[in-house]
């Protein structure tokens, strides 16, 4: 049976470093299995978050050999096991302990975004009629499992740490799916421009590349959202119309 060496970051907010562990590799194993083996046999107190182990809850985000991934969806046979595999916490958020980071900022941001404001129902029983074609678009964005890998890799947040100015890709598409919901009657364009900093995104598409749900974050979420902002704020004809009518 093959053996692999893991270099796992151990430490907390005050600092830390990589620690080496060796563990057996069996067929079909994913990185999270290896981390669990190490936890159960060599490091009972090693912290890592996980829940579903099936790529559905978005808890086990980490950086594996430098790449932001879900540990539960990274198969060992896709990694070069002859060299040590590094596993470290996602970089964009403060470390709590070992592989666990403080992602509470994301929860704060979401709270600020105005929730769905449904228009009057279409039918007397209080329901709406929507065609599948119209819900395809918000449904794609609603596949998001909130693993925050897109937030982790976004250079505006990661390299420039502009968390006070830019909400990040997760919340661009969160707002976009609300805007695309056929029954929504609100507009979040001014809010996204002024409070969430949508202009900071310069469409490098790193977020799309790391999305474990394969959501086309940039093409199908952020760009349409940017277009709505542009329509509402930078359209010269509309601008003139508003100027003249005062609307």
């Amino acid at each position, binding site marked *: 049976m093959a053996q692999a060496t893991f270099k796992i970051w151990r430490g907390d907010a005050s600092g830390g470093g990589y620690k080496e562990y060796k563990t057996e590799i069996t067929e*079909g*194993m994913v990185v999270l299995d290896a981390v669990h083996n190490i936890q159960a046999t060599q490091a009972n*107190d090693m*912290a890592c*978050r996980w*829940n579903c*182990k*099936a790529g559905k809850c978005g808890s086990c985000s980490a950086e594996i050999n430098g790449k932001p991934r879900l540990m539960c969806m990274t198969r060992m046979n896709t990694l070069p096991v002859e060299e040590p595999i590094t596993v470290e916490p996602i970089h964009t958020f403060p470390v709590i302990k070992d592989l666990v980071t403080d992602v509470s900022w994301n929860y704060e941001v979401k*709270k600020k975004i105005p*929730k769905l404001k449904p228009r009057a129902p279409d039918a007397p029983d209080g329901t709406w009629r929507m065609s599948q074609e119209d819900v395809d678009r918000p449904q794609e964005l609603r596949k998001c499992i909130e693993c925050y890998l897109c937030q982790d890799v976004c250079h505006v947040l990661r390299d420039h740490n502009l968390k006070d100015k830019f909400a990040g890709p997760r919340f661009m598409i969160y707002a976009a799916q609300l805007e695309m919901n056929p029954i929504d009657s609100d507009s979040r364009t001014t809010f996204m421009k002024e409070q969430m900093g949508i202009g900071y995104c310069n469409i490098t598409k790193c977020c799309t590349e790391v999305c474990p749900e394969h959501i086309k974050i940039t093409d199908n979420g952020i760009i349409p959202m940017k277009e709505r902002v542009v329509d509402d704020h930078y359209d010269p004809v509309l601008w003139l119309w508003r100027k003249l009518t005062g609307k």
Partner: protein
Amino acid sequence: MAEVQTYEHDVLVIGAGGAGLRAAIEASAAGVSVGLVCKSLLGKAHTVMAEGGVAAALANVDDRDSWKVHFADTMRGGQYVNNWRMAELHAKEAPERVRELEKWGAVFDRTKDGKILQRNFGGHRYPRLAHVGDRTGLEIIRTLQDHGIHQGIQVYMEVAIIRLLKDGDRVTGAFGYYREKGRFVLFKAKAIVLATGGIGKAYSITSNSWEYTGDGHTLAYDAGADLLDMEFVQFHPTGMIWPPSVRGILVTEGVRGEGGVLRNKEGKRFMFDDIPDNYKQQTADNEEEGWRYCQGDKNARRPPELLTRDHVARCINREVKAGRGSPHGGVYLDISWIKQRVPNGEEHIKRKLPSMYHQFKELGDIDITKEPMEVGPTTHYMMGGAKVDGDTQMTRVPGLFAAGECAAGLHGANRLGGNSLSDLLVFGQRAGQFAAKFAKENKAGAVNGDQVDAVARWALEPFERTSGTEGPYMVQKDLQEMMQANVGIVRKEDEMQKAVGEIAKLWERANKVRVDGNREYNPGWHTAMDLHSLLTVSEAVARAGIERKESRGAQFRDDYPEKDAKFGKLNIIIRKGPDGKMQVIQEPLKELPAELKQIIDEMQK
């Protein structure tokens, strides 16, 4: 009492999956202060794993559906030991609970005329499951979460509760710890709602996550509430079985709803061989009719793959034991064959079952549009739980409520797929409503400092032990394997008796485990404390299983392979006796009112 960070709420909800979130939303809407405790981050609870859909008689796809049919289906699926009042309320209220989700942002798949689409599922007579592809649970938890965060609910993330506190008979608080720093925390509350989910981690092969350690069951039991139907553990017929690391992960029943078929290694569709008498009239007896049913033909009967979960799981078990299984000890589930029948089949499968496609592709290197999956039974759902009043969801402990998987009654001996998402919406709402009412009608009770100190001392013992060398993981693993072997899908008196004996030994080991490190985010320590609840629920399952000397629904006894009318008239209750020992009580079912009996009789025609 030692200094402990303390919060006070009118209603405290423990557990933030679908049931807990729905309860918290309802209670806060009633104008009381609400605290919501989650063991993980908000939005990560096991509800995300629910795939197929939420059952509600909306009658959008087949107008013959109604609450009465849903009620009768639920009772039949549960082999008539259900709490009929819960089955009635559930069937009546599920449609409204689903519709209101749309108002809060849920985006379900649509029918051609723009209504919520519904799909077929095992045991449901008509297409009844509202769904979003095969990620319905995620849609529901996210919708409740995104609505709930604007309701003024105070959320405590990554907090685990280890004991409830009482003032006389009444529950008055909850004591636990922050996973992050390991600090203790005390919640004072006028009413408490348990919504902690299931017990799957008592078994080695399970679709459940680490969180499913029976916390709510055990909190309720320790606080003096009754546990009901603990013998009924649902083994989902189709879990992944290969590679080993994914063993147990769920393969949605939706695969079969879309036309997926089960075959043994000889290529035979073995489900046609054993159709129970009470389902014969509604089950197709040939492949062609089964396929037409999956295509929405209202005159066709369902294929036998869509019989109830308990039955399908046992049939798979039988094939494997008879040596007709697949190479890794399961059977084949094939959806790729439908390419012969539907145009553009590959795309069709990917669109209908996107997460299944994704899951097998990434975890198993298998393209389900081209080859069959290997599947086998996995511990999936707990029908048993805290015994509650059907209308209010209150346990026999005043102020203590329970909803969702950790409560019992709705599903009886076997849950139908899709009835758990509707369960948590309907009874989450009710628990929230009545907990708020209780909080308004009652003054805050006292919290006993001695109780708090005793629990805190107990929690820290694993750090102080110096003699033992065993860590908690070995005990957990041994328990899981022992339960899998002795109290699993096919049961026997002697094996379950053996299990009770083994559990006693495991208790002794659990009381001696030692943990390393400090209190900050220490999974070893958390596991050591979880052993208390895992062992409690394991013992309850084994003892209740011994007491019910018959086969019914999810409990199959090799030594009593038939149903016994005597046991069809009673529930098994587990209660903590005054001496701290587990009591097993037979309790007669409440008589079914004439109008509900009439519905069941009519539907059987």
